Structures are given as structure tokens and as C-alpha cells.
């Protein structure tokens, strides 16, 4: 533990990237259909709690993951219904959803597990780790890439799948169209609402996975508010990556690495509060390099035109 930049740091980084990456991919899909999903934070939290719940009830990892995806999906359905059907402001609904998730998980923690603050069962099994056959023997890379939880590998695969889906398939092309110009899409007979629904639900499922990785991927426990801003960092990763799966993966790597680094720095007598600030400070600095489309464009979109 003397070196700062050693193998275990990078292995930890990869482990911590997964929740951010999965959520950011969800955010990217939503952004592609024109919805700014601020509720990622709450959706991940729901996923994290549901994963523990599923594990507690059945002891099965598969069920835990299904619980996580299922409940997050249910919540994202709420987001979808309110912003797409009822035309509520998607940002406000996202914020409300975060409140709801925090309140519900805290309530459920009390109601179901009868504890306050955190639930921890030392006998509960976490996500299984995979030792990839050939990979694990490569000198340095092998120790970093092999032995990660199954959801880390799932995240990597999903990046590739989404990249292929969006830019090579017909269905992905139409999803991009729906976000690029909903009016034109409708005039072609594309069901923009249905596409938006699908996008939000996909992001819900992805956030469920993110939450499962969070609560079952390292130490198996659920802590109140354990997402701790990751949902918002994921949103920044979405923006930095320009809603492009591979770009988002790159941006997420940066933030995951920062998080791992912040933990590692504690071993060097840097106060934990200061190290914990690191991911957030880096995120803000990174945002300087992403130019938001600007208020003029946003205003033009919302004010409509008399033409």
C-alpha cells in the first residue's frame, strides 16, 4: 500500500466506474430522445435498496438483480408517465422522484429491516466475481480486468451493445430521429411517445443494475443516501460524452478513477473529507470543457416561434 498508483487502484477504479457508467448510459438514452433525466440519483438508490431486499428475501443473486431492475423500472415508469403523458416538466419530476426515492428507501429500511441508517448482514453474499480465463494471466492488465463483479463486465458489454444499437440498427436510428426532430418523426408516423417511454424504461433498468453494483458489488450493505451524488456525476458523464455510449464510457472512467483515487489518498494521511471532495471538484473542472447549448437555444425551443 505504499504506492499511490498501483494495480489495486486501477482495479478499484473499474469497480467504481460501473454504477456511474450504467447510469450515465441510461442518461444518454434519455438525452437522445430529448429528456433530461435528473432522476438517475433516485433510480440508482431504489436499485441499490431493492437489490439488498431481493438478496435478503431469497438469497439469490439473480433475484436480487431482477428486483433491482424491476423496481427501478417501475419508478422510471412513473417518471415516463408524468413527463411524457402528463407533460410535466421533466426536470421537476426528476427532482421529485429523487425525493420520493430517498423517503421510500429510508421508510422501507425502517419498516422492513427495522434499522436506521444502514443495513448490513455479514453473511449476505455479494455479486459473484468472474475470473476471466486467458485475461487473468496477463501481467498487469489481468489483475485489473479480471476478478471483477459480473455487473462490471455487463456494463462493458452494454456499452458495446448500445453503440451498435444506436448507430447500426434501424430501431436505434429511429430513436435518434425521435429526439432529433420529434415533429418530423411524428409526421412520418413514428410513435415518438412510445420511443420516449422505451428510453426512460431502459434508463430505469440500467440504473437498477447500477444500484445493484453499488450495494452488492463490494461490501454488501445498504446505507441511506448511499448514491451520494453519483447520479449527478453520471449526468455530467452523459454530457461530456455527448450522449454517445463510447464517449460516455470514457467520461465515466475519469470519474470512477477519481473516486478510487480519493479513497486511496486517505491512506496517505489526507483527511477523508478533503479526499472525498476530489471527484466533485474534478467533475466541475471537467464541465468547463463541455459547453452547454446555451440559454438562447433552450429558450428558442421552449418559447416556440410565431413563424
Amino acid at each position: 500500500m505504499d504506492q499511490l498508483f498501483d494495480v489495486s487502484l486501477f482495479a478499484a477504479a473499474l469497480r467504481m466506474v460501473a454504477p456511474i457508467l450504467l447510469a450515465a448510459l441510461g442518461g444518454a438514452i434519455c438525452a437522445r430522445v430529448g429528456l433530461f433525466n435528473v432522476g438517475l440519483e433516485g433510480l440508482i438508490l431504489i436499485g441499490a435498496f431493492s437489490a439488498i431486499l431481493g438478496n435478503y428475501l431469497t438469497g439469490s443473486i439473480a433475484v436480487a438483480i431482477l428486483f433491482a431492475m424491476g423496481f427501478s423500472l417501475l419508478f422510471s415508469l412513473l417518471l415516463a408517465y408524468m413527463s411524457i403523458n402528463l407533460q410535466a416538466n421533466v426536470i421537476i419530476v426528476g427532482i421529485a422522484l429523487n425525493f420520493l426515492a430517498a423517503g421510500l428507501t429510508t421508510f422501507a429500511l425502517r419498516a422492513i429491516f427495522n434499522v436506521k441508517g444502514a443495513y448490513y448482514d455479514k453473511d449476505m453474499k455479494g455479486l459473484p466475481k468472474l475470473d476471466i480465463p486467458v485475461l487473468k494471466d496477463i501481467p498487469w492488465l489481468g489483475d485489473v480486468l479480471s476478478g471483477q463483479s459480473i455487473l462490471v463486465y455487463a456494463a462493458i458489454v452494454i456499452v458495446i451493445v448500445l453503440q451498435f444499437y444506436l448507430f447500426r440498427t434501424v430501431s436505434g436510428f429511429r430513436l435518434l430521429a425521435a429526439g432529433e426532430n420529434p415533429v418530423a418523426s411524428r409526421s412520418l408516423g413514428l410513435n415518438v411517445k412510445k420511443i420516449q417511454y422505451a428510453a426512460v424504461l431502459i434508463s430505469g433498468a440500467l440504473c437498477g443494475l447500477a444500484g445493484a453494483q453499488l450495494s452488492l458489488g463490494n461490501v454488501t450493505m445498504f446505507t441511506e443516501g448511499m448514491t451520494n451524488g453519483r447520479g449527478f456525476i453520471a449526468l455530467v458523464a452523459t454530457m461530456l460524452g455527448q450522449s454517445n455510449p463510447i464517449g460516455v464510457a470514457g467520461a465515466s472512467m475519469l470519474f470512477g478513477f477519481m473516486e478510487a483515487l480519493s479513497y486511496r489518498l486517505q491512506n496517505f494521511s489526507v483527511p477523508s473529507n478533503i479526499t472525498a471532495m476530489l471527484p466533485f471538484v474534478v467533475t466541475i473542472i471537467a464541465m468547463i470543457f463541455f459547453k452547454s447549448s446555451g440559454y438562447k437555444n433552450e429558450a428558442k425551443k421552449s418559447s416556440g416561434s410565431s413563424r
Partner: protein
Amino acid sequence: MLLEMDSITKSYGLVRANQNVNFNLRKGEVHALIGENGAGKTTLMRILYGMESPTSGQIKIDGKPVTFHDPTDAIKHKIGMVHQHFMLFPAFSIAENIVIGGEPKKGIVFDRKQAIEQTIALSEQYGMPVDPKKKVADCSLGMQQRVEILKVLYQGAETIILDEPTGVLTPLEVKELLASIKALTAKGKSFIIISHKLSEIMEVSDRITVLRDGVVTGTVNASETNEEQLSRMMVGRELIKLERSEAKIGKPVLELKDVTIVGNKTKPLLEDVQFNVHEGEIVGVAGISGNGQSELLQAISGLMPIDRGTIALQEKNITGASVKMIRESGLAHIPEDRYLWGVSKEATVSDNGIMGHLSRTSKRGMLDGKAIRTLVSGWVERFGIKTGSLHTKAQYLSGGNLQKLIVAREIAQQTPFLIAAEPTRGVDVGAMEIIHGELLKRRDEGAAILLVSSELTEIMKLSDRILVMYEGKVVGELDAATATEEQISLLMAGGKAVGQA
């Protein structure tokens, strides 16, 4: 008969957009549908294209009655529509835009290579060359329209509806379009063209149907009519000639020298624009939308910075000054797009009314309710603005009434210089007369007015001097008394007027 629309009526509540309209189309024919703004032309075609359902009436294709629930039904019956505002995806390529909805595929994979090949084949078949890989955002408006037409042809359209196709085209592009239409009809396609541009319609149509206030006032063969007869059917009355008094020109109020905005496209947005506007005169800027007029107005009012040149208002250099300072130096501005720039929809009539009048409706930083009420209700009366009360939100006012409010607000500032951009866009005839009257009154009081309009009749009616803009440059300056529509149109097209360098 290829298609027939029998006794179509469409009501929105109490408003009758179409009333018992009969319209039909023969195979291989070009049938124009003309009328003023709000006559009901677009509504009728939206019904034909399945975007709206008629309140009563019937559509028949090849003699068989049909009902369209949405555009896909119309497309199935080989009807295609090119909208006035293009329905394209700017970030996608031309090929992608053409094939969307019917993408060539291998399983679930989008075969983009096939799409490109099919686009090339299609464009060659119909003689409309395009670069399939080019992004639509990088294409000229004329090229974009070509893509729209190829798109409906790709979808198998035999009947093509064009809604105001020439509004955004340069005169050269208009020529190309009319030629394409003729070539396509030779190949058996049929066209319905919505327009209010009489000369173009006369050149390309076989038959012409005129709509006025939702009712058909006549269907004639193009060869048997002329523009005067058509305008009479469109307008229903002799056009009133507003008397304009002799101009009393004073000293220059607005002075532009070498104003240039480079922008990030190949051609500069504004190039070496130079002109003055004097006291007591209305300078009209004619030109097709998109030739730099918006940028010019934004530069003058301080909403857009310029790269080169100077702007002076009442001899004070306002280049690069803030909007606030420019307004305080004596500028008022009727914006070209009222919902985008001119109002806040959620705010009340009085809130919208006092923008720019804060100094006379407030004391020591606090709003004076009584002064506001007096000011705004005065306008409501004088301009006949129909509103529930001063507390009604702007979004509930009709376009015309909102425009009246904006015009009242800006004119009431009694500034030495006034920008009037598209002052009567979307406004009914009665309101138009009122607004025109007020503008002329300001001019007679000695104000300098810069009028920008895409309606040539409005320019010719109000201006003392006429400037023509084309591709960011002022290409001509004419005395309104002697200028003719032909001269102006030629300059708008980029041509050179007789006797000019």
C-alpha cells in the same frame, strides 16, 4: 379523376377553417390552391394528408371513398406532402433523411450503403442530383427542399402536395423547382401546390382553385385567367391605396458603416452594409427571408455583436453597446418573431406592456400600478386590443392582438428611431391598416423608421426609400416613388438592375 375532396368542412370550435370545399386532382396535373394568409389552404391539405380529420365531407381516391387517420394512411395511398417548414433531421445525411421510415435493412441492421445507392438511383431517375452523404444541416434551403421531394418520391408518392414551396428559395432555385415539377408531371406525377405567389403559379399550373375565408371562390384553368382576376378572387375587394404624404427628410438618425458579421458559414452573414436612416423617412428593407435581415436588426439593436464596422444612433457610436444603452440612446424595436422575442407568454398584458417603459412607470425602483394601468389601457383602447383584462396572460391573446400590443408598446416610446420587423405578420387586415397608419404617423412626426418585411406590397406601400438585401449585402437602393416590383424582385434574386454598376 385521381382524387376528390367533396364538401369538406373543418371547424375548430366556432371557427370554420374550411366550408363545403370541393377540390379535385387529375392524373398528371398541376393544380394550385391559392389564397391569402388564413384562407384555409393549409388546413385543407392537412386533411388530405391525414394530419387532421374533416368535420364533415369525404375524400375519394380513384373514385373509392377513404378515411385517413394519420399520415401513414395517406402515404399508403401514395400521397406525399412537402411541408412549408421542412420536416428534416439536420444532423442526419441526405440519404438517411430520404429513406427514414422505409430503411433498407439486413435483419435489424440499417444498411446505410444500400440507402446511399438507392438515393443515387432515385435522384438520377428524376433528374434531381444530390450528394447522399452530405449532412442536411450543411445544405442550402433549395437543396433541402429537393431532399424533401425525393423523400416523398422514395415513399412511392404519386400525388405530391407542396405547401408554400418558394417562400425560402432564391429566384434561381425557384426556376429549378418549377422545372423539376414539369419534369415530374411528364413522368406521370401529380401536384397540388399551395401558394400565394401568383406569377409562379401562373407559370406552372394547369388549374387554379382560389380559397377565401375557408370558401372556394372559383376554380379556373390557368390558361384562361390572369393575375388581376386571381387577386380579386383572393382578396374580394380592390386593394386600398393608402395615401402617403410628402416626406420631410431631416438629418441622419441611424448611420451604418461597413457593418460586417463573419459568422461560421462559408459566406458572411452581413458584408459591408452601409446606409443611413433619416428623420421623417421610412427605409424599407426588401429581400427574401434569410438574406441577413435578422442579423442586421440584431446587430443594430445590440443583440448580436459585429466583427467590423460602426453603428451610430443620433451621432452617438453604439457599436458593441448593450441593448439597454442602445434603447436609452433612442431605439425602439418591433421584433420579427413576437413569441420568441416580443413577449413573455406567462406574463400579463400589463407586464408585457411596460417592458422598456420602466422609467415612466416606476418611482425610485418601485412599480407604479396606477401609471401602468393608465398607460396600457390607453393602448388597449386606441389600438382596439381584444383582451379580457390587463391581467390576462399574453398566451391567451390572439396573434393579431398581441402584435397590436407590441406595436403600441414600441411606438409609445416615441423614440427618434424605430425598427419595425414584419410588423403585420399573421395579423388580420383590420389590424394591419391600424398598424400601417401608426407607422406613417410616427414618420410624419419626424421619427426615423427601418422597416423590414418579406411582403413586397407592405414595403412598397410604406417606404420612402427601398433597400434590397441579398446574401448579407445591400445590393440595391431605390427611390420608392419610381421603384417597380420587377426591379426589386430582380435585385432580390441577385440580379443587376438596369443602369447599376
